[in-house]
C-alpha cells in the first residue's frame, strides 16, 4: 500500500475545514438542520469525495462511478458541502438549504440533486439500498464500489441488522461502510439510551470484516482504513470511526446534545467560523 503524502493529507485537512465552514454557515443561514452529526462525519466525507472515490462532478451519472449512500440522511449538510466543493453545483447555492423550492432538501433527495444516489432520512434504509447497488454492480461485473455512512443512533434500527445480514450473506466485498461513532443521539448518550456495544463484535458476527479503533478525525488513519477495506474482496467491511459530535466547533463538541438538530445562531456562527480558520 502506498503511503499517502503529507501534502495530500494537508490538502484534505484543508478541504475538510472548508466543508465544516459550509456546514455551520448553511445551517445558520437556514435556521435549522443537523450540524453536530454533519461535523462528526466531515473528515470521512472529505476523504471519500476528494481522495477515495472515483466520480465525475460534471457527469453525475457516469456509469462507472463509485456510489455513496448517506444512510444517516439528516447529515445532509456535510454531503451538500462536499458536492459543492467538488463542483456538482455552485457553492453559493448552499445558502438555500431547506428553503422552499431548493434542491437542498432537509434530508437528501435523489430526485432534486445530482450526486445524491439515494433519498434517505428515515433511518435504517440506506444500508439496504447500498446493498442493492452492490448486488446490481456485481451482476453487471462492474468494478465500482459502494460506500455508506451510518450513525450509531441509527444502529438501533432493526433494518440496519437486516441489511448487515444481507451483505454478510452475499459476501458483498464491494461495500465499505463507515459507522460515524460520535456516541450521542438525540435523547442522550447512545450507550445510555440503548447501548450498541460491543459494536465491533456485532459486525463481525454478521460476517463483516471490521476495522475498528479508527480515529475518525485523523485523515491518514481514515484513508488507510479505506485502503485496507478495498483489499478485502469476499466480505463487506465496516470501519468503526471514533468521532466527536460537532467536531471542529468547540462549543458544539462540549454540548453534543444541544447541536444534534439545532442550527447555530448568528453569534454562534461567528464564533464557530473564528475556530475554523
Amino acid at each position, binding site marked *: 500500500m502506498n503511503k499517502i503524502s503529507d501534502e495530500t493529507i494537508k490538502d484534505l485537512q484543508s478541504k475538510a475545514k472548508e466543508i465544516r465552514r459550509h456546514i455551520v454557515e448553511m445551517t445558520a443561514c437556514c435556521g435549522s438542520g443537523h450540524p453536530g452529526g454533519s461535523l462528526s462525519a466531515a473528515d470521512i466525507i472529505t476523504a471519500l469525495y476528494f481522495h477515495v472515490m472515483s466520480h465525475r462532478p460534471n457527469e453525475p451519472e457516469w456509469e462507472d462511478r463509485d456510489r455513496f*449512500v448517506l444512510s444517516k440522511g439528516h447529515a445532509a449538510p456535510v454531503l451538500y458541502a462536499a458536492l459543492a466543493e467538488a463542483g456538482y453545483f455552485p457553492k453559493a447555492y448552499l445558502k438555500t438549504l431547506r428553503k422552499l423550492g431548493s434542491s437542498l432538501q432537509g434530508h437528501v*433527495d*435523489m*430526485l432534486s440533486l445530482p450526486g445524491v*444516489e*439515494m*433519498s*434517505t*432520512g*428515515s433511518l*435504517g*434504509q*440506506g444500508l*439496504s*439500498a*447500498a*446493498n*442493492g*447497488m*452492490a*448486488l*446490481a*454492480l456485481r*451482476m*453487471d461485473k462492474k468494478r465500482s464500489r459502494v460506500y455508506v455512512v451510518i450513525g450509531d443512533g441509527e444502529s438501533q434500527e*432493526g*433494518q440496519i441488522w*437486516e*441489511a448487515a*445480514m*444481507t451483505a454478510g450473506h*452475499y459476501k458483498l466485498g464491494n461495500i465499505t461502510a463507515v459507522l460515524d461513532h460520535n456516541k450521542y443521539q438525540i435523547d442522550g448518550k447512545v450507550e445510555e439510551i440503548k447501548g450498541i456495544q460491543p459494536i465491533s463484535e456485532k459486525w463481525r458476527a454478521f460476517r463483516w470484516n471490521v476495522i475498528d479503533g479508527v480515529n475518525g478525525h485523523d485523515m491518514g488513519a481514515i484513508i488507510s482504513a479505506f485502503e485496507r477495506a478495498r483489499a478485502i474482496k469476499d466480505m463487506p467491511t465496516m470501519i468503526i470511526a471514533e468521532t466527536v459530535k460537532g467536531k471542529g466547533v468547540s462549543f458544539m463538541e462540549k454540548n453534543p446534545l444541544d447541536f444534534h438538530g439545532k442550527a447555530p445562531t448568528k453569534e454562534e456562527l461567528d464564533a464557530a467560523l473564528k475556530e475554523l480558520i
Partner: protein
Amino acid sequence: MRDAYGKALVEMGKLYPNLVVLDADLSVSTKTSLFAKQYPERFFDLGVAEQDMISTAAGIASCGKIVFASTFAVFGSGRAWDQVRVSVAYTRLNVKIVVTHGGITTGEDGATHQATEDIAIMRALPNMTVIIPADATETLMTIKALLKVHGPSYVRLCRSATPVIYENEDHDFKIGRGILLRGGKDVTIFACGIMVTEALEAAEQLKIEGIDTRVVDMHTIKPIDKELIINCAKETGAIVTAEEHTIIGGLGSAVAEVLVENALVPMVRVGINDMFGESGKPRELQEKYGLTSKEIISAVKTVIKRKK
C-alpha cells in the same frame, strides 16, 4: 393468478435482461421461484426481512434494473410501508411490488396474514400505481403493461385460483382504465379482484328481477378512472363498489371521492365492515364477511331505492 405471475416473470425475464426479482422467503407461495429457477443470477431472496427487501429493491433499481419485489400483501404493504414510502414512492424508482395472498381469502392462516387494509395504505402514497387484477390473464396483462412504464407500483393478487374472466389477452388493458364487462342502465357495480366474478354473478341474478346492471372491472385503484366513474354515475344514477378489503379507504372510498366532487349519486360500498378476519376456508370467509354476490345484490337494491 399466482401461477400466471410466476410464469409471466419467466417469460418477461427473457425479453427484459435487466429484470431482477426479489422475494422475502415466500418464493414458493408467490411463485417467484419459477423465475429463480430460470434466472438464478437475477433473483435474490432476502429472507424474512421485508423492509430490507424493499430498500434493497430500490438500490438495485437505482442502477437501471427493473425490479419486482414479492411477498404476502400484508407484509409488502404493511410491514414495509415506510420503506415503500421513502425508498420507492418518494424516489419514484422502478420497483413493482407484486404481492400475493391479498384479502381475507388467504384463509386458514388467519388475520395476521390477511391483507384487509392494503389498498388504503398503498393508494395514499404519491406516485404509486395500485392494481388489483381479477384473473390470471389480467395478471399477465398487468405485468406486461407495468414493464412498459417506469415507476412505483403495487399489484395485489389473491391466493386461490380464480374463474376465468378474460379468455385471452385481446382485451384492451390499459393502466388506469376500467373495463366495461357488462352494459346496463339501472346501476353500475365497480369491482376489483375476486369481487369482479361476484359482481357478474350478481348482475345475472338481478337481470331475472328486472334490474339492468352494468359491471366494471376497476382493476386500477390508482390512478382511478375518474371519467368512467362520472359517466357511469350520469348514465345509471346509482353506484355499488365491491372489494375484498375494508370499506374504509379502498376502492369504495376512491370511487366515492370522485362522485362527491363531480357527480353526486347514491352509492353503497360492499366490503369488509371495518374488522379483522379470522381462520377459515376462503369461501366460508367470503360468506361470513359479506363478500359475495348476495351482498352485492342487496347493495344494488338498497342503492336503487335511493335514486332520485
